[in-house]
């Protein structure tokens, strides 16, 4: 395959800045290794590691610690580090809540040696996206303080029940941190509390970040360009393995369904979420979600019932994350020797250009490369296994 075939999105935007780091990063001795290559290899590797048997922390509570110091105004990411980060975070937050339906997120910014919470832990993406986008008017001043940021996040994460998975993600542009006291003490506390801290560096490796990630079981990476940044950020969408000290419990939940009204006009009712809100006022509306235990009405899910305390979620929303638990089996790469003439899923006719085809270990059906990627990245269901009752069962009892 020629190098020109590789899709190098946005490479033209970044120009030749930081290409020396792309070369430095490659420790296999291949100088021409492109960033797209590095990302592609990492993606395949991660895919093969997904087996579905590891315990995951699904009820995530994530604080994003965003560096808003002087260093974020640098223009090595276009247009600036901060604006590029804001744009990527926009998409990340949507994707995070899409894949982690009953998780919560909060945002803390670090500038001028202080930490400032701009958005509290909450399960609604709109609010966070709004807050993040308002940051483009913030003045980027002074140095960040990782310790102050961590302490602020920790004070809030500490209060959570023991079955909640706690995480901190730091996006760090600066190479220095200005901390009031010994950061090792903070790292030790985080470790004891089971808070997983990951760091994405925008400039170069910083020792204290590496140590923080290592000690708390997180990941530490320094970006090569904006594509790599996006890839690293989106890795955080997948739920991490459950922390060792994480308690587990069964939580009682309600799955509200809309009231059956049999052709008649639905009565106007008041929802509990707006009943005492001052700015919007309580509205009488038709439709909505009713708590199956006490029949209070809500206009948005997920929510905790104010009357009886039951957590209300929508079942399909919860189901969005099940592919983490039951991933489609990884296909094995086999050389194409005219075993079959068509890709089982997309009906593409295999030709001489298909040197490799992909075979499912459960249903032994053969697929093309594009389908392999589509099935494992998006669909999460093997079309071969899912169309035959005898293989259909295997994938669900494993």
């Amino acid at each position, binding site marked *: 395959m020629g190098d020109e075939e590789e899709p190098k999105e946005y490479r033209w935007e970044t120009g030749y800045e930081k290409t020396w780091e792309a070369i430095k990063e490659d420790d296999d001795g291949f100088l021409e290794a492109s960033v797209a290559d590095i990302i592609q290899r990492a993606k395949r590797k991660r895919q093969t590691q997904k087996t579905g048997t590891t315990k995951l922390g699904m009820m995530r509570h994530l604080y994003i610690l965003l560096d808003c110091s002087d260093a974020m105004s640098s223009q090595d990411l276009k247009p600036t580090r901060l604006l590029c980060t804001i744009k990527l975070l926009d998409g990340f937050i949507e994707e995070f809540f899409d894949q982690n339906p009953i998780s919560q997120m909060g945002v803390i910014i670090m500038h001028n040696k202080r930490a400032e919470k701009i958005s509290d832990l909450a399960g609604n993406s709109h609010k966070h996206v709004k807050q993040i986008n308002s940051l483009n008017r913030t003045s980027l001043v002074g140095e960040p303080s990782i310790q102050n940021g961590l302490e602020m996040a920790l004070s809030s994460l500490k209060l959570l029940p023991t079955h909640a998975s706690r995480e901190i993600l730091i996006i760090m542009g600066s190479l220095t941190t200005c901390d009031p006291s010994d950061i090792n003490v903070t790292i030790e506390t985080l470790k004891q509390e089971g808070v997983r801290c990951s760091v994405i560096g925008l400039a170069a490796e910083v020792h204290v970040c590496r140590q923080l990630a290592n000690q708390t079981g997180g990941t530490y990476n320094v970006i090569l360009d904006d594509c790599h940044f996006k890839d690293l950020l989106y890795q955080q969408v997948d739920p991490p393995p459950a922390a060792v000290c994480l308690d587990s*419990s069964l939580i009682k939940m309600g799955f509200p369904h809309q009231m059956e009204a049999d052709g008649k006009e639905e009565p106007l009712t008041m929802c509990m979420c707006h009943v005492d809100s001052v700015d919007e006022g309580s509205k009488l509306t038709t439709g909505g979600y009713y708590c199956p235990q006490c029949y209070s009405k809500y206009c948005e899910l997920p929510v905790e019932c104010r009357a009886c305390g039951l957590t209300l979620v929508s079942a399909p929303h*919860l189901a969005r994350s099940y592919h983490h638990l039951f991933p489609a089996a990884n296909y094995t790469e086999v050389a194409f020797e005219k075993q079959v003439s068509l890709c089982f899923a997309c009906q593409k006719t295999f030709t001489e250009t298909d040197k490799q085809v992909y075979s499912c270990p459960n249903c032994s059906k053969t697929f093309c490369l594009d389908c392999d990627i589509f099935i494992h990245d998006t669909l999460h269901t093997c079309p071969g296994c899912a169309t035959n009752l005898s293989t259909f069962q295997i994938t669900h009892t494993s």
Partner: protein
Amino acid sequence: MNNIVLKRESNTDFSSTDETSLLVVIFDSNPGQQFLRDNTHVLTHCLDSIIAFSNAHLMQKAQNKLAVMACHSKTSQFIFPGPGKPIDIRQTDGQYEIFTMVEKTIKHNLSKLLGSDISNILTESLLAGTIAMALCYIARMQRIKSPGIKINSRILLVTGSSDSASQYMNYMNVFFTAQKHNVVIDVCALDQHLSLLQQGCDITGGLYLKLPQLQGLLQYLLWVFLPEPPIREKLVLPPPVKVDYRAACFCHRELIDIGFVCSVCLSIFCKFSPICTTCHTVFKMPGPLAVKQKKKKLKL
């Protein structure tokens, strides 16, 4: 031929000239379905209606694309365009060649499929898997289209099977994938009410119709499902029904409205159990009830 007039009118905006519409019809031809076992003529009746409907879709616009799939319990197949070369068709009694080809190919491939699947008949049709195949096919059509052309894709499911909660996971995966790729899923239920598929229609913006009368299948197909989603807004169609969004418990695959969710893996159970069958986590008991717990690995 009201449909053609309708189509012309909505075509006046210039942007739609290079838009095509890809329709994948999934016909549940599993002979195990109750309504097919009662009367064998029903299958022919349904098939004829589907062929007429498919041709009506092709007639709407020269660039329109069509695929037809048959779904059984042990296999699902594309019956149009079938595997292998297209059948060579000469014009017969003035019928447009493509229509003859659609009809001949579908009937040929389906009878071959039905002939090969007589050993033991199972009643469950694996519709979710068939939708998964259709989505792969649609994804390929999107990959190989010529630049500048916009393909609007939709899937129409015609089935008389009942809902099967055992396919819950696969259904959800295909619904969310369809939603992500703007593929509309329409469902025409011939025999029984299908609450899971109704959720799929709701998620993807498609239409769900429980056929009041099997005799009128073709009329309902033409009235309700032939107009493309953007045109539907202008038509008076069956009112949307309230969708039942209950969850299926992992233990019995039954729909429940209050359940217990494992904090580690979000599996849903209808009763409290001391151990999660999905991730093998041992839970703290709520009461003093001391149950002998199996020694399972608690830590990784």
